[in-house]
């Protein structure tokens, strides 16, 4: 907004782009240049001068290669799986959580969280830079978005912990403990969300008990700030599911935060539900109170068509506000629009379970899916064929690949965590990382198709 120091008569605030009397030459200027501009624009629209012309500023990387294979021998000996991985905000450090994905019973197995700094010289893939011992298996992990030393983790016991890797003595900065507020079931997802106050970050945790909880770091403990409970009877449009037996809680197996709308989030459940939820939902949850200090609310607003099995992973497209992809045990990757219940596209990725899915941070039409056979399949929706653009074998002798994350800074690096306790860092080819002509437009077209 511009203020004109000489014009004392301006009572109203100048609106964006409003003409000031002092720029009377503006009209003449436009008069002079208009014809030239319009002529150039018209020539541009018809020009073939740049057809097929490409400039390569960087070295082309033709192949996909495995840069590092990180392992923590102690964890591997115990047969622990990598349950979750997270990159630090600087992109130099990768943290992995060890636990077990297949355990049915209450596990009291000791496990750990390891970090490797990939940018440090003398990186030893078999020796992590930091090892944090944890009394219970860790099911989910998330680095703080701005503080490179803080990591939040969700445990099998339902506890949520925040570690500070800068602390030498005891890395635990804050934890929920076993209070009445805490989850009673494994916490499958943790994330950092912005709080009400500027610069404040809350820890979000979601678990198979059907609870999505928001915690503030207060001294040495995590204090419950807000909470949501997903109850079957309160799930919208679901007459078929209300006949279900068993617990009325909707166990959360995956959660995705929207990069476009800070109020919305998606939840995937054990029963195959995919729900759109809102942080600002007001309706109280129909769950019996269990001594929680905060009234739990019902967040679900919209139900997408359910899947035949637990939804293991969800991810919002970083390039289109209405698109997301979901994967589960049915081996399909489903591309959804937020605006309709049925998927836009259903891709058969594998005959086995799918455990993770992530959109490429640089190519709007590309996403990767991690399979139960230990492969990561990369799909390019711009290609005519629906076969994968690349397949990366995690070399786990057929054991599943459980989690994947793209490096937020070096976007051609993809980390994959596996059931054999290893984390592979892959360097993707330029073809898979450089955005092509009109990709965003193609994605837009895809998003606007109405499902049959």
């Amino acid at each position: 907004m511009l203020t004109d120091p000489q014009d004392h008569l301006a009572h109203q605030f100048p609106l964006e782009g409003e003409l000031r009397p002092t720029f009377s030459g503006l009209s003449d200027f436009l008069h002079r240049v208009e014809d030239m501009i319009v002529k150039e624009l018209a020539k541009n629209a018809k020009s073939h001068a740049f057809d097929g012309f490409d400039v390569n500023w960087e070295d082309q990387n033709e192949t996909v290669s495995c840069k590092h294979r990180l392992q923590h021998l102690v964890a591997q000996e115990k047969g622990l799986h990598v349950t979750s991985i997270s990159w630090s905000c600087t992109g130099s450090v990768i943290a992995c959580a060890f636990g077990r994905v297949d355990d049915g019973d209450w596990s009291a197995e000791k496990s750990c969280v390891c970090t490797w700094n990939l940018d440090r010289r003398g990186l030893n893939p078999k020796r992590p830079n930091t090892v944090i011992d944890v009394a219970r298996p860790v099911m989910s992990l998330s680095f703080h978005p701005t503080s490179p030393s803080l990591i939040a983790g969700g445990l099998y016991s339902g506890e949520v912990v925040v570690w500070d890797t800068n602390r030498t003595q005891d890395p635990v900065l804050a934890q929920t403990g076993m209070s009445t507020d805490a989850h009673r079931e494994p916490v499958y997802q943790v994330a950092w969300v912005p709080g009400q106050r500027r610069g404040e970050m809350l820890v979000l945790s979601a678990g198979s008990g059907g609870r999505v909880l928001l915690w503030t770091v207060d001294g040495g403990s995590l204090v419950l700030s807000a909470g949501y409970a997903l109850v079957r009877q309160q799930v919208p449009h679901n007459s078929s599911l209300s006949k279900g037996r068993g617990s009325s809680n909707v166990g959360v197996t995956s959660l995705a935060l929207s990069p476009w709308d800070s109020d919305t989030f998606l939840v995937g459940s054990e029963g195959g539900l995919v729900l759109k939820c809102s942080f600002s939902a007001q309706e109280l949850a129909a769950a019996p109170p269990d001594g929680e200090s905060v009234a739990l609310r019902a967040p679900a607003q919209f139900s997408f068509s359910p899947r035949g099995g637990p939804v293991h992973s969800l991810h919002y497209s970083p390039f289109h506000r209405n698109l997301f992809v979901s994967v589960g045990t049915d081996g399909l990757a489903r591309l959804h629009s937020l605006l309709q219940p049925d998927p836009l596209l259903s891709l058969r990725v594998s005959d086995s379970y799918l455990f993770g899915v992530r959109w490429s941070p640089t190519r709007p039409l590309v996403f990767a899916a991690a399979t139960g056979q230990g492969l990561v399949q990369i799909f390019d929706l711009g290609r005519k064929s629906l076969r994968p653009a690349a397949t990366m074998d995690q070399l786990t002798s057929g054991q599943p690949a459980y989690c994947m994350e793209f490096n937020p800074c070096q976007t051609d690096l993809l980390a994959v965590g596996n059931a054999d306790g290893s984390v592979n860092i892959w360097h993707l080819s330029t073809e898979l990382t450089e955005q092509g002509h009109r990709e965003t437009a193609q994605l837009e077209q895809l998003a606007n198709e109405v499902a049959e």
Partner: protein
Amino acid sequence: MAEVEETLKRIQSQKGVQGIIIVNAEGIPIKTTLDNSSTVQYAGLIHQLVMKARSTVRDIDPQNDLTFLRIRSKKNEIMIAPESCVEIL
């Protein structure tokens, strides 16, 4: 003035135009069809580039002057029609 708005509308309606920014001699945006933050960003960056391009042309031949500048990138193209502010004596 209506005439200015009309002209801008005509240009904006051409095929492929994403937005128009008009900048004064100091590089301050005075009219724009884009959002504030993009406008400020473009104005600041482009002004320096235009000055450099202009001095390049005039250093090679002092009788010459910059008439048009186009920056073509992978995703789009920026077209700049500069205004000469020098009095010819």
